[in-house]
């Protein structure tokens, strides 16, 4: 009576031990595999995110620089030198009529820019003392010799010295992101042209970036302020992210890259 029962119990015991052993080994090995694959996946995701961020940064840079290039194309040297001639011939055209011709050409150039660059909302030209000489706008009335004095503003001062300027992002109507781009020729005290540029095109680029189901991209300016984010209300709150580790890391990278560029 006992032998078959004993064999039955022993069978189950062996089965249990066997299952535990095999199961245990399987579990341990899959845990190890899980850990490594998790690590690998995390690395892959970070690499993907980095690539998308670099790509977006590149597109933003290209956009802003292309607008700067177009505005720079409207600059003419100031006709101080009376021997400077339009035709290149021997008889010099007087400085006064040169200035008038250049002003007319400038107005045409600005109008053409409004037609060809939808991101530009208005362009202003200031003389060397900072007085507004020409305003061509998509929305406001155009003005010649409007007379506004911006000599103290950063877009004028910095542009005169550094010959190019990109303002911090500001908002029109509390909802549209803008940037002022200043350009000037490489002269000691040049005239300055400033364009107001609608940045919505950049926002569309940034808000469309997706990594996986929940990943997204956002943009901060040099000071660490949030300037683009798929949730626009966060931008309107003007969040300061300068203390976030990823922002600090990126800023450090930019700083070291700049140092490498210096001779």
């Amino acid at each position, binding site marked *: 009576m006992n032998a*078959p029962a004993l064999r039955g119990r022993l069978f189950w015991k062996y089965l249990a031990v066997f299952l535990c052993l095999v199961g245990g080994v399987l579990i341990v090995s899959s845990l190890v595999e899980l850990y490594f694959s998790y690590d690998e996946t995390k690395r892959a995701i970070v690499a993907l995110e980095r690539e998308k961020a670099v790509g977006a940064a590149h597109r933003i840079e290209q956009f802003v620089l292309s607008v700067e290039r177009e505005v720079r194309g409207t600059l003419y040297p100031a006709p101080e030198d009376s021997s400077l001639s339009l035709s290149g011939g021997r008889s010099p055209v007087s400085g006064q009529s040169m200035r008038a011709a250049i002003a007319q050409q400038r107005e045409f150039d600005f109008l053409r820019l409004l037609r060809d660059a939808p991101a530009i909302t208005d362009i202003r030209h200031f003389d060397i003392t900072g007085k507004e000489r020409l305003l061509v706008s998509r*929305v*406001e*009335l155009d003005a010649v010799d409007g007379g506004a004095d911006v000599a103290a503003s950063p877009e004028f001062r910095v542009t005169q010295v550094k010959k190019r300027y990109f303002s911090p992002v500001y908002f029109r109507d509390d909802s549209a992101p803008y940037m002022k781009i200043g350009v000037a020729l490489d002269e000691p005290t040049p005239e300055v042209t400033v364009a107001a540029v609608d940045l919505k095109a950049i926002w569309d680029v940034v808000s469309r970036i997706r990594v996986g189901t929940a990943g997204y991209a956002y943009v901060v300016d040099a000071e660490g302020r949030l300037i683009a984010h798929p949730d626009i209300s966060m931008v309107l709150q003007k969040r300061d992210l300068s203390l976030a580790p990823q922002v600090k890391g990126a800023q450090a990278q930019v700083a070291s890259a700049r140092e490498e560029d210096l001779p």
Partner: protein
Amino acid sequence: MHSAPRLFSLSSFKLRAAALAFLVFAASVADAQPAHRLYKIGVLNEAWAANHPAVDGLKEGLREQGFVEGRDVTYEVRFTKGAPGATAAAAEELVKAGVDLIFTSNEPATLAAKKATQSIPVVFTLVGDPVLTGMVASLARPGGNLTGISSRATELAPKRLEVLKTLVTGLKRVWFVYHSSDITDTAALPSVRDAASRLQLELMVRPVNDAADLELALKEIKPGDAVLAPAVDTLDIPAAILEAAKVPSVFPAALWVGHGALVSYGPDFRAQGVQAARLIAKILRGARPQDLPVEGAERIDLAVNVNTARQQGLTVPPKILFRANVVQR
């Protein structure tokens, strides 16, 4: 002979295992694929046909965003042919039909939609001044269930006056004709008056109540004058101006220049539809209209009809030609 008591019968164990496996599978599958819905979008249009350019822009824009007609989204289009009262009825009909979102293309349609529902998202286009006309609390935070694209008509009215002045050398007097209930154009009045004095133009303001008033107003226009057409279609005033007044007139959209108007300055209708589609895509994917700021129309076009200019004895100056996006010959 005893056999070890069986705690589980084999068949019920298989059943339980199978059930568990199925649950795990179903959970993982459900997690992997987002729920696929067919969205119903109501389109409220005061136009005379179903194919208004803003609606074309809407469909194209949504297609670009990944919402294909028939597969992801269907459109319930109601065009009311300008019949009074029809717009309000159509708005209520759309609400009853259980649409997920309503797309509108001018102020009266938008106001009708706003009245018909306070919960279904409404995305508007061709609205000249969303804050002043009461559609939204502010551009940055619309509040409520409405958001959309502002055609900036109120803001651009002075600029239209400037275009007239540039195009017609020696222009002295401009007539501003609009319907008295037209909030958008009434709101533009202060800035238009200011612009007129800066441009040294005499401005004749004529708000009209009905067709008889309109006829009288149009009769007052003398050769050598010009007309600033209203931004809103009420009483078909822009069409009447195009028909009757043989003097230079500026309109709010390039559509009119295609029909023979001399010049227009304002945003493209189709482009507004495409812009609205981006907002709509966000809403369909879960965003709330009250969190989406109202956007200003992106493409502001200057359109000029060279034929009409020739007929009216005008030469189009370089300042206009350099700026014009659309030149109709």
